[in-house]
Structures are given as structure tokens and as C-alpha cells.
């Protein structure tokens, strides 16, 4: 479905753009329908930049990103709108996504204004309720509320509902649960698992290895913009080949196993 091949993104940095920074360096992977691919890396590894390029919020310097065969770089106007109807993103901070002046469900109504202006209000309302039901939110509890009246988990689920309203094929989930509490975190993860079972492809961007492992079919480990290891999740986590992956795994705090029990793999530079 989504194919990223040989993608590089170079940013101009410095006072006059004199220096360049390669944020993503020759990255290739693909996401199929009903498949969850985790992009795992520390800060500065380029994982969010890849997510932004897939959402076409940024354009690759070289390489191609194709969705069902169509090159993203060539999409314009109507075709781009059509792409956005099928691919949507949800980001880390649910609190800053909402405008505190307006009611939270405004994000849902804006989808109608932008994509489905011909749908009658009553039909739209049913669709909204269905979508909220799909993310296990009670419409009566969340509609008509302001962002500060809802919890982080509710706000985040409403954003996922917003993406679902478009009947998307691919969701870019960029650190969607790192701001949530432990007890609600897992609900959002399980929700993503249910959506995957319905055929949604998910690009799951995270720095947390245990979360990447819970959900994903394929894992892509990034370091400074480059892919260091990629493969089926069980293999990458069960039998990491690259020293950097081993180092990352050894650093993850785990319950039932202390750091002091195992040796720390040498960090690689």
C-alpha cells in the first residue's frame, strides 16, 4: 500500500542555511493493509520526519514515497485531497491540537466542511456517533464539551475518531500514547489493534520499545536518520543483530527484570 523507497531528507540549518542536516538518510520500508509498522528511534533519529513526509507535510529531498502506486510528490489539488482522505495522522500532544476557545467536537465537524460538504447534517451526526463509538467514547459524554473538560485519553481517542470519519486506509500515529497515563495508554493501543484487524494500515512512530513491540508486525529501528535494523517484530526484539538495537533493548526499564541483572551492551557511536 505505502512504499517508502530510498528516501532522504536534508534540512538547511544555520543562520543563513549554510549548513545542511541529513534528517533521514536513504530509508526504505513498506506498509501493507492491516499491517502495523513501528518506526522506533531516539530523538533526532528522523522518525517523525518520515511520518511528516508520509503525510506530505514535508517533501523528500530525494527518493520516492508511493501510495498504491501513485507518487506522493506529484499529488496536487484534488488528488492531494483524495490522498488526505485515505491517509491521516494523529500526533503526540492531544492538548495542543485542540483550540481551547472552541468545543472539542469542532475537529469532527471540520472534517465535514473540508471533505463532505454535501452530506446532510443529520446523516453526518450519525456518522460522528458511529466513529466515536468505534473508539469507545460515549457521544453523550464528549460532544459539546470543551477540551479542558475532557481527559487526555478522551481527546486522543477523539482525534483517532476524526481520522476514522474519513474512512482512511493508513494512519500515521506519531507518539500517540506517550502523553497518556499508564491505565489509559493500553486502551488506545488496544483500539489501534482493533482497527488493524479491520484492515487499517498503521505507521506507528515511537521511542518506546515496549509499546512498539506490543502492536507491530514489522519494526524499523532508526538511528540518526538511517535504518539500522528492520524485520518482523519478533525477530528484531527476540534476536537483535545490530549492537545499537541491543543497546536500546538493554536500556528499556522493564518490570520483573532489573538493569543490574544483565550487562549493558556497549553504546555505539
Amino acid at each position, binding site marked *: 500500500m505505502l512504499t517508502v523507497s530510498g528516501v532522504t531528507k536534508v534540512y538547511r540549518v544555520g543562520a543563513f542555511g549554510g549548513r545542511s542536516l541529513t534528517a533521514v538518510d536513504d530509508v526504505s520500508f513498506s506498509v501493507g493493509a492491516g499491517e502495523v509498522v513501528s518506526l522506533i528511534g531516539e530523538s533526532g533519529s528522523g522518525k517523525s520526519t518520515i511520518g511528516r513526509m508520509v503525510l506530505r507535510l514535508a517533501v523528500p529531498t530525494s527518493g520516492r514515497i508511493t501510495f498504491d502506486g501513485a507518487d506522493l510528490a506529484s499529488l496536487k489539488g484534488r488528488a492531494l485531497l483524495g490522498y488526505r482522505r485515505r491517509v491521516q495522522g494523529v500526533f503526540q500532544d492531544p492538548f495542543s491540537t485542540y483550540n481551547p476557545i472552541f468545543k472539542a467536537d469542532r475537529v469532527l465537524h471540520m472534517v465535514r466542511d473540508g471533505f463532505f460538504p454535501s452530506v446532510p447534517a443529520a446523516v453526518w451526526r450519525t456518522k460522528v456517533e458511529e466513529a466515536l463509538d468505534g473508539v469507545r467514547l460515549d457521544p453523550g459524554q464528549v460532544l459539546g464539551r470543551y477540551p479542558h473538560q475532557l481527559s487526555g485519553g478522551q481527546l486522543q481517542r477523539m482525534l483517532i475518531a476524526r481520522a476514522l470519519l474519513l474512512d482512511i486506509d493508513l494512519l500515521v500515529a506519531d507518539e500517540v500514547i506517550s502523553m497518556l497515563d499508564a491505565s*489509559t495508554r493500553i486502551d488506545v493501543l488496544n483500539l489501534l489493534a482493533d482497527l488493524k484487524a479491520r484492515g487499517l494500515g498503521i505507521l506507528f512512530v515511537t*521511542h*518506546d520499545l*515496549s509499546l512498539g513491540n506490543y502492536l507491530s508486525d514489522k519494526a524499523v529501528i532508526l538511528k540518526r536518520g538511517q535504518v539500522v535494523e528492520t524485520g518482523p517484530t519478533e525477530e528484531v526484539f527476540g534476536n537483535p543483530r545490530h549492537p545499537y538495537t541491543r543497546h536500546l533493548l538493554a536500556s528499556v526499564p*522493564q*518490570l520483573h527484570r*532489573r538493569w543490574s541483572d544483565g550487562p549493558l551492551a556497549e553504546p555505539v557511536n
Partner: protein
Amino acid sequence: MGLRVEDLRVYYRTLRGPVRALDGVSFSVADGEIMGVAGESGCGKSTLGKSLIRLDGRMKHVSGTVELDGVTLPIANDIAMRRYRFKEISLIPQYAMSALNPTRKIGRLVDDLLASRGVDPVALRPEIERRLTLVGLDRAVLGNYPIELSGGMKQRTVMVLSTLLDPSLLVADEVTSALDVSTQRAVAETLVGFRDRGFVTSMMVITHDISLVYQIADSIMVMYAGKLAEKAPADVVVNAPLHPYTQLLISSLPEVGVRYSSRRLTGIPGRPPALLNPPTGCRFRDRCPLAFDRCAEEPPFVEVAPGHQVACWKAGS
């Protein structure tokens, strides 16, 4: 002698009435103990940490005492607390980035800080440099501006600064949450190193991440909705918790190796009660699978085994 907190209540003043963020908390931290304080957002863990250092304008000390090494701290009196802050009790704030003045070189900032406490910065300079080296920093950072350091370096610099005067108690509030996993591990292990070298006597590590605090803490205290749920040695909290909230919290944490297809984890349904007018009785009652009639009465925080305290009617029996 460590820290003893007795029935501490700190409320936030709001227009709609007091928010009972910390509602009757009693515990102690022994000398040399690293105690983790865990809980979800809004459970009062940061309020607890702040209460020990400085009550801001919105916070009101309602009742309770805090005793450090046998001396009662005047926590409600901002000015009287000055002689204890930094010297006896010190804090590492959550965002090291915002704790450092961006317009001053770090060395200058340290000098100002020490001079304000009546300590001669020049005499202490070799010790500062020694400790910076210990946490893996070059002493040249004293000549850097904060913007020139990475997040992990800033966090470690702040850790060195906070512990310069060898405080008796160090409160570390979410010190690792903004860091990458490998930096997180380095910072957490540095904290243990500080205790082992005697830079600090005892420590409270406040975090939402139980798996992280399990790595470094001797004991873990779990808070829920402004009250204590359970305190026990770290191994007991993780492997044999007694409070239903702790049990559910631990079982909802995904670990490396757990996949939803083989073992589907569940969260805790519902949400914590609002603390403006909290319900009477056990505050976890509405979300608790074991709740029964007696939970309408507030369970006391009692010791069920040596070093293991729980606030639940079902735990003791």
C-alpha cells in the same frame, strides 16, 4: 533519621473551593533509602514533592507535619524554609531545560547560586569539577551556555548542582521523562550513584513510570487521588502488590516481549475522581473490581507485613 511525614494535607485554592490534591499522607523515608513515588497524573505526587520544598501561592498547608532528621520543617512558612532548601532538602525539577538561566554561563550560575547560600564558590570549584566528571561531563561545561548542552547533559548538570551541598533529602520530580531510553538509563543510574557516594542521604524519585523506578528504588509508594494506596519494597510492589489499584496498574503495563495477539492487556476502566469534592470512603471504589459495602468507609493505611503498608480493606484479610 530520615524523613517523617505525618497526615500531610495540602489543598489548592480555587474559586470553586479547595482541591484536595494531598489529603492525609503519612509515610517515612529512612536514611539511605531511595523511595519511588508512582501514580497517574493528578494523583498528587508532584504536589507532595513540591510541598516538601516550597508551597506556591495557590497551595495551602491544611494540616500535618514534615520532620527531617528530627527537625520539624516549617513548610507553610516560605521565608523560614529558606535555610533548609538546597542545604537540607533539594529538588531536581522536571525540566532541566527551564531550570537553567539561558543568559548565563553555567559556571556563573553556580557561583551566583552558591554565593546566595553564603558558600564560597571558589573553594567549592574543585568539588564541582570532580562531580561533573563523575557524571560523565567535561568540566568545560561550566563555560558553556545551557543551549550548548543536550537534554541529557543539562539534566545531569542540574543533578550535580542540586546536590552540591550534600542535602539530606533529594526530591527528583520526573527527571527522566523527557529523555531518550539510553540517556534515561544513564541519568537514573547516576541518581543511585549519588546515594552510594553519600552526596545525598535519601531520595524521593517521583515518576509515572513504575518500570523505571523499579530499576533504582528500594521501595515504591503508589498514590491514588491524593492518598496513599500502597508502600512496599520495590520487588513486592511489582511482583506481589496487594492494593487492587497497584495490581491493575502493573498488569496494564506493556513490556518488551508482550504482544497483543498473545496476551491482550487491559487498562483500568473509568477515571480518577475529581478532587474538588472527592467522594467519601475509598477513592478507588468506583473503579475497583473488589469493591464491597465496607469501602464506603475510608480504609486506613496500615502495615500488613514489615515495610509493606496498604490502604485497602481486602488487603489485610
